[in-house]
């Protein structure tokens, strides 16, 4: 009952310094402060994070699945846009 009254929040966690925040899932909470607390308990139990972002799911504007073709397909055929010809040394780590 309570869950249906609380808004949905999307949770983003930064796993370690230098990495980007990554979307890890969503949860329900009455406000942003509790969403952060809940995210801490639901998504960082195994030492996953150094930083948490939460944003109301309703604030996210998403591309429509039906637009997939026009949006993304054209880039597939442009091989020169893909930097696949370089060997990245292991020491570089995450790019």
């Amino acid at each position, binding site marked *: 009952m309570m869950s249906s009254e*609380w808004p949905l929040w999307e949770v983003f966690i930064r796993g370690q310094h230098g990495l980007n925040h990554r979307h890890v899932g969503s*949860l*329900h909470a*009455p406000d942003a402060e509790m969403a952060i607390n809940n995210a801490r308990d*639901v998504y960082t*139990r195994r030492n996953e994070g150094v930083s948490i972002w939460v944003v109301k799911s309703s604030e996210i504007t998403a591309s429509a699945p039906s637009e997939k073709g026009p949006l993304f397909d054209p880039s597939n055929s442009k091989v020169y846009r893909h930097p696949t010809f370089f060997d990245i040394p292991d020491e570089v780590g995450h790019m």
Partner: protein
Amino acid sequence: MATAALDPAARQAALLEFLLRVGDNTLILGHRVSEWCGHSPALEEDIALANTALDLIGQTQLWLGLAGEVEGKGRSADDLAYLRDGYEFRNILLVERPNGDFGKTLMRQFLFDAWHYLLLKALKGSSDTRIAEIAEKAFKEVSYHLDRSRDLVIRLGDGTAESHRRMQEALGELWPFTGEMFMSDALDAELVEAGIVPAPESLKAGWDEIVAETLAEGTLKKPADGYMHKGGRRGVHTEHLGFILSEMQFLQRAYPGATW
């Protein structure tokens, strides 16, 4: 006074007693809170409460582990948790109170957390480095417990008419069990003098402050200090502890030494 403080056997007995008191508090409350697992009003709260329970059980392993070491009879933390009878438990009565509804569980948690926080903060400066180290680790966990329970007590106190009523009722029922946290006996005095633990009564002013501020913000009325229940710290418990132990200890009692 000075001679008592120098007697190693008395010191050891007092230290063991203290470790059981603090370890049994976290054990019994950890078990109580774990009873909510799978039953909380929302998934997020369920996981948060389970985390709190796990933190408390983790702290129990450290406290009772050290208790076994101090006792020197080869008893492990598990032995102490699973193979003692009710009268050998030293937890305060507050932590064995039944969960009641979610509000009552949170109110109990808050009243305990505020005290636990202050106790650990003081224990970080213990002259016994083993105790100081455990306190250091537990303090971080308990700081979060307090943040969370305090926040929820305020939200539910200052929430709907129904949540306010339930929180005020919980407060009234649990209040007479808070006095035991600040009572002391000769064993405490022994350790206080050695700089190992803070005097229980020395935590009262800080606790009063946290509680008064939180209740005020949650629009809850602090009950008057009347009769305070006591006994847990010397092994005299309410009937509730027996039910907890029969569930918690069943496996080791029925199948001694069972592992998995």
